[in-house]
């Protein structure tokens, strides 16, 4: 017993070091798997508050660009509104109006793009109806998926994150694939597992696919920058130039698919029966 106590006293610094290192490695491993970074994330009162303070100052620098983006989007929406083909359905009847998606706007108060796993922080949380696994987009294209939520803030797993896998398709031919990011250039992402039969051409548009219940179908992602067949010649691996400038994201839309639970329950039941 005496020896154990002596050992503990003699090596107390090493034991403290080993304990703290172990703790931080546990946090690190957790952060590398999807939805597991429970304890250390920036969706909390303190970091959210500080990021809001910083953003209050730094948002002025990007004001011009964000205004231009808003004007561009407004003119696009106005064009759609004035050119509706069907003049009868212009009046929205709330009883029959098909509102599958609910949209909330949010402000980005923190954004990374230089790491391997990047996150954004939004100034909107549970109190604004934000939940885990909702899609986040801008007027130009997709941004990411909501990860952690606190009452006032939320973190978003950016598409520039090694854990991010998003279902996407070629706009022209509906061939599906998966959108991933392997680090490096924040403007280029990889579009993999596309059938070699698909008609791929440089400059073609990639949009979100309908398979996922997170994003609506047909949200813009980017254009094909370069492509090559993989060694087995069964699949293409494609580099996609994003529509969004991920290094400058100001205001975003958070999209909730109201049918999501219904779809998931149905799919679960189908799987259980088999």
């Amino acid at each position, binding site marked *: 017993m005496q020896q154990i106590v002596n050992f503990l006293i003699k090596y107390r610094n090493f034991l403290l070091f080993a304990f703290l290192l172990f703790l931080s490695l546990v946090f690190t491993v957790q952060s590398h798997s999807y939805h597991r970074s429970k304890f250390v994330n920036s969706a909390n009162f303190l970091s959210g508050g500080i990021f809001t303070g910083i953003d209050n100052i730094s948002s002025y620098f990007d004001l011009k660009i964000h205004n231009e983006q808003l004007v561009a989007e407004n003119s696009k929406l106005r064009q759609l509104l004035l050119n509706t083909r069907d003049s009868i359905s212009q009046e929205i009847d709330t009883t029959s109006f098909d509102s599958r998606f609910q949209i909330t706007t949010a402000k980005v108060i923190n954004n990374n793009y230089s*790491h391997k796993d990047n996150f954004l922080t939004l100034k909107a949380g549970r109190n604004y109806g934000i939940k885990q696994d909702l899609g986040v987009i801008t007027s130009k294209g997709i941004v990411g998926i909501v990860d952690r939520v606190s009452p006032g803030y939320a973190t978003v797993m950016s598409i520039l994150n090694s854990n991010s896998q998003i279902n996407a398709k070629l706009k022209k031919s509906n061939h599906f694939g998966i959108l991933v990011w392997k680090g490096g250039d924040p403007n280029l992402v990889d579009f993999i597992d596309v059938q070699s039969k698909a008609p791929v051409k440089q400059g073609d548009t990639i949009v979100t696919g309908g398979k996922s219940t997170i994003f609506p179908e047909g949200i813009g992602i980017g254009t094909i920058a370069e492509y090559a067949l993989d060694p087995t010649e069964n699949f293409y691996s494609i580099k996609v130039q994003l529509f969004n400038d991920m290094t400058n994201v100001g205001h975003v839309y958070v999209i909730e698919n109201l049918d999501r639970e219904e779809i998931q329950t149905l799919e679960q039941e189908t799987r259980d029966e088999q």
Partner: protein
Amino acid sequence: MSNSILRNILRFIVLVLAQITLFNKIDFLGYINPYPYVLFILLFPIGDNRALLLFTSFLLGLSVDMFSNSGGMHAAACVTIAYLRPWILQSIFGIAYEYNAVKVSTAAYGERLLFASIMIFTHHLILFSLESFNFSDIIYILKKTLFSGAFTLLLCMLFITLFSFKRK
């Protein structure tokens, strides 16, 4: 004594705030960020309170982690260099360290530079290894360690010189 405690608490807060508001957002050439918050561990008073240094380094790393959504990468790197610090000091300053006669901010320039670079490059190597979590990216890890480390070293040496002229 209380003056020294107060100065260290203040240094902790200022360095963390500067790191998250300013240095995390530099993104020089798209991926180079300096991490001068390690200055806290470099300048921590040299004495017998190793447990305190380990614990505060852990807190320092964890605060930076919380703001950059990086799990415990900074904490792991900080705790490691805090643990290794006495041996690095001893190998560089030799007998002067044994008599507690060393102060990093007033040490000779060459010794100070050597000490800071060993600490900073060790910290960055651990940090970026944990970030990529994949040893096939070894070139990426080394490249990032080298460039970010040089940037951090430059800033740290600058800050030490700037903020220690009074005590000379």
